[in-house]
């Protein structure tokens, strides 16, 4: 993953909303150091300087713009991207609610017209033979059909940026059997039809599939289930945030995974990451935004 996300050569300008914590500032600092980004930090200049000094970072390398509160900082950062002064927006210490409200604002927001806001993460796991694109790890609690369709398309788009053509997409369920117990069954049937009709371009879609049938070739043999994904999935679409969130976290914490993730459905890349991600994952998130910009 490092290879791919860091292959971006152009320096991009990142506007960071309310970056007043060591966590965010260190991640930005690393991106600036590595030459993939220039950073504009929006917040309280004194606070920002203090945090920089405490962490041995020279605040002079950032353009700092004064802002009174987190909401205004988010609006300013988004405004800079809209006006072309920056290429990427990143959430600092702003609460996620406030930040997303600003992103989704009808007039001064950053959404593509009528787009679904979602999240795609790309994960590198030692035990898997390739990168895994996973959605939605962060935003939509219970996606309906339209949202699942959008999630699928976003993941395909991101995989494409990594050079993956004709990706294999597994629509994840508790078992490969359709069941009235599981509401996703009918949505998945629809999405498969759309896939066959070419709505998503070149790709292979199947589901519901359990995680083994999606990712473990041996299980496919043992179970004798016939699926074109056949344990070789590039993309996993989950039925809910409830299942996707612990899944990706189990990969990070127990499976030694590293991830990069981005909001989807926005006009320009928006970096939104959890404070508890590892340093390297945070850096990958910024690098991924540069790749997608």
């Amino acid at each position, binding site marked *: 993953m490092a290879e791919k996300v860091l292959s971006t050569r152009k320096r991009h300008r990142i506007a960071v909303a309310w970056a007043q914590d060591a*966590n965010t500032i260190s991640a930005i600092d690393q991106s600036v150091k590595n030459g993939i980004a220039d950073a504009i930090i929006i917040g309280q200049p004194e606070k920002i300087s203090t945090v920089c000094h405490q962490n041995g970072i020279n605040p002079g390398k950032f353009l700092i713009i004064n802002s009174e509160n987190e909401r205004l900082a988010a609006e300013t950062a988004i405004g800079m991207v809209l006006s072309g002064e920056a290429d990427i927006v990143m959430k600092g210490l702003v609460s996620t609610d406030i930040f997303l409200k600003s992103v989704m604002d009808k007039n001064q927001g950053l959404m593509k017209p009528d787009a679904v806001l979602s999240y795609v993460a790309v994960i590198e*796991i030692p*035990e*898997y033979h390739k990168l895994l694109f996973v959605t939605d790890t962060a935003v939509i*609690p219970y996606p309906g059909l339209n949202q699942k369709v959008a999630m699928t398309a976003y993941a395909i788009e991101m995989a494409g940026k990594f050079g993956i053509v004709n990706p294999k997409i597994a629509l*994840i*369920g*508790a*078992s490969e059997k359709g069941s009235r*117990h*599981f509401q996703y069954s009918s949505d998945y049937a629809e999405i498969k039809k759309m896939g066959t009709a070419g709505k998503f371009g070149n790709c292979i879609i199947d589901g519901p599939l*359990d*995680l*083994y049938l999606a*990712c*473990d070739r041996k*299980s496919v043999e*043992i*179970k004798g289930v016939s699926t074109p994904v056949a344990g070789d999935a590039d993309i996993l679409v*989950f*039925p*809910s*945030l*409830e*299942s*996707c*969130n*612990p*899944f990706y*976290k*189990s*990969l*990070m*914490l*127990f*499976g*030694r*995974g590293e991830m990069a993730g981005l909001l989807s459905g926005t006009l320009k890349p928006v970096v939104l990451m*959890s*404070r*508890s991600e590892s340093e390297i994952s945070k850096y990958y998130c910024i690098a991924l935004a540069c790749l997608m910009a």
Partner: protein
Amino acid sequence: MVLKSLNDLRTIVAGGPVKKLVVAAAQDQHSMGAVVKAWKDKVIEPILVGDKDSILNISGENNYDITGVSIVHEPDIEMATQLAVKMVNNHQGDILMKGKVGTSTLLKCILNKEWGLRTGKLLSHFALFEVDTYPKVIAVTDVAMNISPNLQDKIAIINNSVGCLMKLGYQMPKVAVLGAVEMVNENMEATLDAALLSKMNQRDQIRNCIIDGPLAFDNAVSLESAKHKGIRSEVAGDTDLLLMPDIEVGNVLYKSLVFFAKARVAAVILGARVPIVLTSRSDSEQAKFDSILLSAAASR
């Protein structure tokens, strides 16, 4: 006591009498190897109920020496299952194990009102995972039995699991109720249940454990994550038992731990008169053996 490894189960089992494991429709390629190994290792004493010829054929083909193992001949799968359940009901066995019988047939027999193994408790699935990225064994429930448990069901599932952990030597195990987020969110029922379960625990309505939730997966198992988020909790980062909101979440997590985190796993069905071993074809030989080991430890 807290289990550091599934091997610790051996110590627990070694401390007591050898338990009798009754296998329903034992002519089963997929379970017999683990049963024979557990018998050789003195974890259990098997009673194989099923088609004697097939049982002998399978053991012959696989070079299992089962000389001295008691076999109860009943060629019909459903009848053999009934017989196995009835034997346990008559105290002739301490553990029941699924052989070549469908899960639904087995459950139907277990739940039979006259000669089944009902206790009035909900049946629930309980699994122990050992991963080298977590400092102790972590229990997860329910990843396989209850599709979408309501609050009452979740209380029953916790009680079943805590009861089992206590038999394994735990005192006041730490229970994390899993959510997609660690905040109570009125649109996410799992987080509301989690908050209620925590409060019921504080008020001694659910005993013998410390419950906190909702906790997201990261703050349940990583103290560092919990600190980042500013969560004050006795359970965060030190979870012994992780309660799943439903089977959809549990199934994915179970498979993620086994496949991506290379976890060693043992599982058992709780809530019946005796522990029930119900492994699937795709479980490894080791997982099947460890499940027998867990059920022997849990039947004390």
